[in-house]
């Protein structure tokens, strides 16, 4: 019976700890943005463009909330900023072993609002992902670039949002087919 008591309490504690840590355990990262959804997305777009030396181009901007609204339900704003870099995707797509990772392309950064009214940025944990799938070197680079994507300079004015259809070419990018 003692076991039951201990089990009951451990159960509660475990569930609590698991819930608390879930976000870290998973391969996704969430950071809060000081700007609104549109401005955050636009600033990320600018940051992506600033790394064109690494092959980055914008390949799309999606607004999934709009489609859901059309079907009759409410969801807070979400914008998916899609970017890709042939420099990184080339080697991954060149290998049979890793070609399946194309499922994660283009690289998507999501910007959304939560019920607390604040704006958040969701990113893939590129470093961890890379290690898991044996492309650690490339993904470590992506992870580095991701940091730049989400580092904002408040002194710069809010740039306009670049509305490109998904699958379209990056604005001024080298790889017009958007990977």
């Amino acid at each position, binding site marked *: *019976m*003692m076991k039951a*008591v201990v089990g*009951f309490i451990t159960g509660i504690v475990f*569930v*609590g700890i698991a819930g608390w840590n879930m976000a870290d355990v998973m391969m996704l990262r969430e950071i809060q943005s000081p700007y609104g959804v549109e401005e955050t997305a636009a600033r990320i777009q600018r940051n992506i463009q600033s790394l064109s030396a690494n092959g980055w181009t914008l390949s799309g901007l999606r607004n999934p909330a709009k489609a859901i609204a059309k079907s009759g339900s409410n969801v807070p704003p979400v914008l998916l900023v899609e970017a890709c870099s042939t420099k990184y995707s080339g080697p991954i797509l060149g290998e049979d072993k890793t070609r399946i990772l194309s499922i994660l392309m283009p690289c998507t950064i999501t910007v959304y609002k939560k019920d607390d009214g604040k704006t958040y940025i969701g990113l893939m944990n590129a470093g961890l992902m890379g290690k898991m799938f044996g492309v650690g070197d490339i993904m470590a680079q992506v992870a580095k670039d991701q940091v730049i994507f989400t580092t904002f300079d408040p002194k710069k004015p809010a740039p306009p949002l670049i509305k490109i259809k998904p699958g379209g070419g990056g604005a001024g990018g080298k790889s017009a087919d958007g990977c």
Partner: protein
Amino acid sequence: MAERIYIFKRFERFWHWSQALLIIFMMLTGFEVHGVYSLFGFQAATELHTIAAWTLVSLWVFAIFWHFTTGEWKQYIPTMEKVDQMLKFYLTGIFTDAPHPFKQTTVRKHNPLQRLAYLFVLAIINPLIWTTGWFYLFYGSWGNWGFGWLSLEWVAFFHVIAAFMMLIFFIAHIYLATAGHTVTSHIKAMITGWEEVED
């Protein structure tokens, strides 16, 4: 040499275990409703807590009926003097004799310690938890019942206090269930109905 006596009848055992499950479940959901942790989600927790409450109410209706028709209710309401004696006995005896658990002498269902505990449950925890729970369930009718002056905060306050007392009772109860003739004899009795007692 141990003797076996039939203590818990079939309905009683069913009542005990289903009530046990319901109370555990109500503690689990109840403390979530109180905001201690998040398990089922608030909405599900309240709904489950309410369903469990009504199940327990119907179980109690049967149990009360059973106790009165069978006369078993007498097992729960000891006479005052007996309670006095047993209180004294167990309040002192338990300390001195704890290293050597006292022999189970009664052929009655419940030993004096249990009676004491159940008295506490019946006289304090239950009235408190049921009254406040009932008010909680019928929050919208307070005005019609003439209880418009009540505040949810106080109802919730006493409900939570009762819940903590129930949790404490639950811990102690589980422990004392091991305090029979052997560690498992009480538990076995609650399952099979037969209790091993010392000669």
